């Protein structure tokens, strides 16, 4: 209340409390600082401070050959690294005009959809934790473990995967990887159903999340929302449908949308997307079976490393190996933007090449960074506990936020 309005001197002037939520707070799942002005338990206004884990990826990328930038993208949204990796490879392939064989595209779809499931598992189970429901989180995390086992079999790493190469994948799926994927596909539906039974129609969970942190479709577009958060507000924008990459146009899937844009809708949209991802993976496996076996990269010796035994025994392979590792491959001059549907929305790479061994400029459109600025607007007038829930349902990942 401002001083001018308060003419009666008998009334005690109202004071607000300033509360520092973060930078390290157990409830925010990452390094986020919000300085909140509180009226009792209600939030009057807030200010976000970001940049606590800024690592200057865009600057580092200006000095690295293209294939060395993949490891930087791992560390954006580290809950779904493979999507970031493959998005980067596709950007460079677009610049180099490399045609990727269909089988590789389907294999990539399998990897990306598995990553999407693992991303949504984390977000949705953490929404549960923040409402006080720890059980679902513990149950479903076993499934994320299975997905990480698959990644480990595919590329050797679990979290920061560095999966795939420019021009394809680094190796074909092994029989063990296929067996793990089959096992996951057989087990996951029942587990996901169990998780949904715990939360979806749970009275406490619904009371807690419905009308918590809502955003209208107009506001969401105004603030640059993409991905599940935008779809929860009722806009059916999905990069996989709008600008298909990696043969997504050949797959049958629906794009779930919400109506209120609140925490419950965001939860439900992610749940449905997991079911859709499962269906996409099954379709992709069928499609892979129809393609010639053993193809896992395009025929681009200038950019795709030859097998090691050939490097040791074959002059041509040795030359290519040397040129790729030293960054001597000829890269066309040009600028290109490529976007993929990441775990959080439209993840875009803007790349300017001047023909050098490293990009002249690389800019990443990080969905988190763009939609997190609406956060203080969304929590105005809300309870502090709802603010925590709103943040976890927006799936703000510190690595992607700060790049």
């Amino acid at each position, binding site marked *: 209340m401002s001083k001018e309005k308060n003419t009666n001197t008998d009334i005690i002037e109202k004071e607000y409390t300033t509360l520092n939520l973060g930078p390290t707070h157990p409830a925010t799942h990452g390094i986020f600082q919000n300085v909140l002005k509180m009226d009792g338990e209600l939030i009057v206004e807030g200010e976000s401070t970001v940049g606590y884990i800024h690592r200057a990826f865009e600057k580092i990328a200006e000095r690295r050959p293209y294939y060395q930038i993949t490891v930087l993208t791992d560390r954006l949204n580290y809950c779904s690294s493979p999507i970031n990796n493959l998005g980067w490879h596709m950007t460079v392939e677009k610049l180099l005009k490399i045609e990727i064989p269909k089988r590789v595209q389907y294999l990539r779809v399998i990897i990306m959809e598995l990553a999407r499931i693992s991303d949504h598992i984390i977000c949705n189970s953490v929404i549960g934790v923040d409402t006080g429901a720890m059980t679902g989180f513990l149950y479903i995390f076993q499934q994320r473990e299975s997905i990480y086992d698959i990644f480990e079999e595919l590329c050797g790493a679990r979290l920061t995967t560095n999966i795939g190469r420019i021009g394809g994948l680094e190796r074909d799926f092994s029989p063990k990887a296929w067996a793990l994927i089959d096992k996951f596909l057989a087990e996951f539906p029942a587990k996901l159903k169990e998780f949904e039974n715990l939360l979806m129609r749970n009275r406490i969970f619904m009371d807690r999340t419905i009308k918590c942190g809502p955003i209208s479709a107009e506001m969401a577009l105004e603030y640059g929302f993409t991905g599940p958060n935008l779809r929860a507000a009722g806009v059916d924008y999905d990069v996989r449908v709008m*600008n298909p990459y990696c043969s997504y146009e050949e797959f049958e899937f629906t794009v779930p949308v919400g109506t209120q844009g609140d925490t419950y809708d965001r939860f439900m949209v992610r749940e449905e997307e997991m079911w859709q991802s499962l269906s996409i993976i099954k379709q992709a496996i069928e499609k892979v079976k129809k393609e010639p076996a053993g193809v896992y990269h395009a025929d681009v010796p200038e950019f795709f490393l030859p097998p090691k035994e050939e490097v040791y025994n074959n002059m041509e392979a040795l030359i290519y190996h040397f040129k790729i590792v030293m960054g001597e491959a000829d890269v066309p001059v040009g600028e290109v933007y490529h976007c993929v549907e990441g775990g959080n929305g439209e993840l875009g790479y803007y790349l300017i090449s001047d023909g050098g061994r490293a990009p002249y400029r690389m800019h990443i459109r990080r969905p988190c960074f763009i939609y997190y600025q609406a956060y203080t607007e969304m929590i105005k007038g809300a309870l502090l506990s709802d603010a925590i829930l709103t943040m976890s349902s927006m799936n703000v990942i510190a690595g992607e936020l700060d790049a």
Partner: protein
Amino acid sequence: MNNLLSTIEEKLKAKFGEGILSAEMHYDFPVFTIRKDIIHDVIKFLKEDEELAFGFLTTMCGLHYPDNAGHELGVMYQLHNMPKNYRIRLKTFFAISDPQIPTITDLYASANWMERQEFDFFGIIFKGHPNLKRILNMDEMTYHPMRKEYPFEDGTREDKDDKMFGR
């Protein structure tokens, strides 16, 4: 997509004339270079035009070309018309000695942090921005690190030869 390029080029040329410096395709994107003083009007026109209606700001980023005397710094905007799936890119360049450009936060709320980020990294001053301060780097920093004159490696090191490891 070439259709989109010519449609927009015609519309912009009719409205702004010489202010549209170039229009060309870069891969799958129509790219327009706009004179700095009309960039806000052009974006406003593109947003409010009934047919084009670019209602979504996808991203923006700063650019630095130290060799282009008088036009060293630049900003790239990417706009999106979601219902029709039109995507375009706009660029504008200006001198590093006077790095001022009008803000577009009045058109797109999402431009707020994007402009702060480019101010932080390139020192581009967005006139009229409600809260133009550093966002990812610390407030005490005295320079704008994404400009090309700031080397990535420590300048005092001699063991790393740029011929082998640089760009």
